[in-house]
């Protein structure tokens, strides 16, 4: 991992730590550690899947896994992070609700970390706050800062939701997908971006909000 990515990662950790301080109700112990662990788990899974889709065999080229800039599969990384979190938390699903606002704020930090990486800019724009790459006359949307602002708002909204099973976690997933979906058209891309995964996040998040409270009393206990 090169240093600019490391700074962005540290910004994400800082934001999630602030989130755990702002919204500390019902949090499990060591919430920031758990979020870092989940992020690392997601990163490993997402990178492995990206490598396989690129035709690079991780067994033949195991060191390629550290080349994070080579690509991380968004959907696999998201699923990997959620599963890692739940596994480390002994599958206490209700804890997802408590950690959700801090997780979303951490993601906002990751996007805001574009300032360290010099990677905030997106498609060309004539808006007054647009700026240009060094040596270029083309001003562009600071799309990653839009995403960061959207995710900060999303974290706050999630923190205001009632304590029902999967309501906060589902809403967080849906709102993260929505923010990425709205900003994706302004993001430079060769592939059009993982729009399908963002739509899936919105759909599954919404489903979790609807389904979660109905699961209480079956095998899962409600948040206390």
């Amino acid at each position: 991992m090169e240093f600019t990515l490391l700074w962005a990662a540290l910004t994400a950790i800082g934001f999630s730590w602030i989130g755990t301080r702002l919204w500390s109700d019902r949090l499990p112990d060591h919430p920031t550690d758990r979020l870092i662990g989940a992020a690392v788990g997601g990163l490993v899974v997402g990178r492995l899947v990206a490598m396989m889709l690129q035709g690079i065999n991780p067994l033949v080229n195991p060191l390629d896994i550290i080349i994070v800039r080579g690509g991380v599969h968004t959907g696999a990384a998201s699923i990997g992070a959620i599963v890692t979190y739940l596994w480390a938390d002994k599958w206490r699903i209700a804890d997802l609700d408590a950690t959700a606002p801090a997780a979303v704020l951490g993601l906002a930090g990751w996007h805001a970390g574009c300032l360290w990486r010099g990677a905030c800019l997106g498609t060309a724009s004539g808006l007054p706050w647009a700026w240009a790459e060094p040596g270029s006359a083309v001003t562009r949307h600071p799309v990653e800062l839009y995403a960061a602002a959207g995710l900060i708002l999303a974290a706050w909204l999630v923190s205001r939701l009632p304590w029902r099973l999967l309501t906060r976690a589902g809403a967080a997933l849906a709102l993260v997908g929505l923010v990425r979906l709205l900003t994706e058209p302004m993001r430079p891309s060769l592939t059009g971006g993982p729009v399908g995964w963002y739509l899936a996040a919105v759909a599954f998040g919404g489903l979790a909000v609807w389904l979660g409270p109905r699961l209480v009393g079956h095998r899962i206990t409600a948040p206390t």
Partner: protein
Amino acid sequence: MPNRNGQSFTMLKRSIVLTLILAACGGTATAGPEDVGGRPDLPATTADEFEAHIGGIDRPAVVNVWASWCLPCRSEAPLLNQAFEQYGSQIEFIGVDVQDNQTDAKAFLAEFGLEFDHFFDRDREVVNFYAGIGTPVTFFFAPNGELFKTHSGILDERTLALNIDELLQLGS
């Protein structure tokens, strides 16, 4: 708490096994020498020859410096392929293989199917001429060979897409 530790250790073992199974499903991609026998050697170039070549191209160009031994080059190769397929009609894509040997270079090209033009620059003359640092490094040229931007290190999708967009704006 021995039970918790034991359980965690079992889960860890399961995770490692799952990771290895997933990894084994990846494409086996290393081409053997027999796969590259039919491919001609990469043409050798000097800094002067390359400058003349790039100066004669009337559209923007992306010049990627790579080597078969370079780990990050493996990760960015599929991305370059994708960009070539998408923008090959508007932008010239050129590869420069440095500090390498022909056999390994051809195996690398066969492995990733990089079908744009490549040059062989054993002594890094071209890279040094344009003041590039390390491998990989990617040069973005305006039409007629004016160096627009140098990106040292691995390319990610955003960086490549953004710089291609900049080149297209220059060309229009």
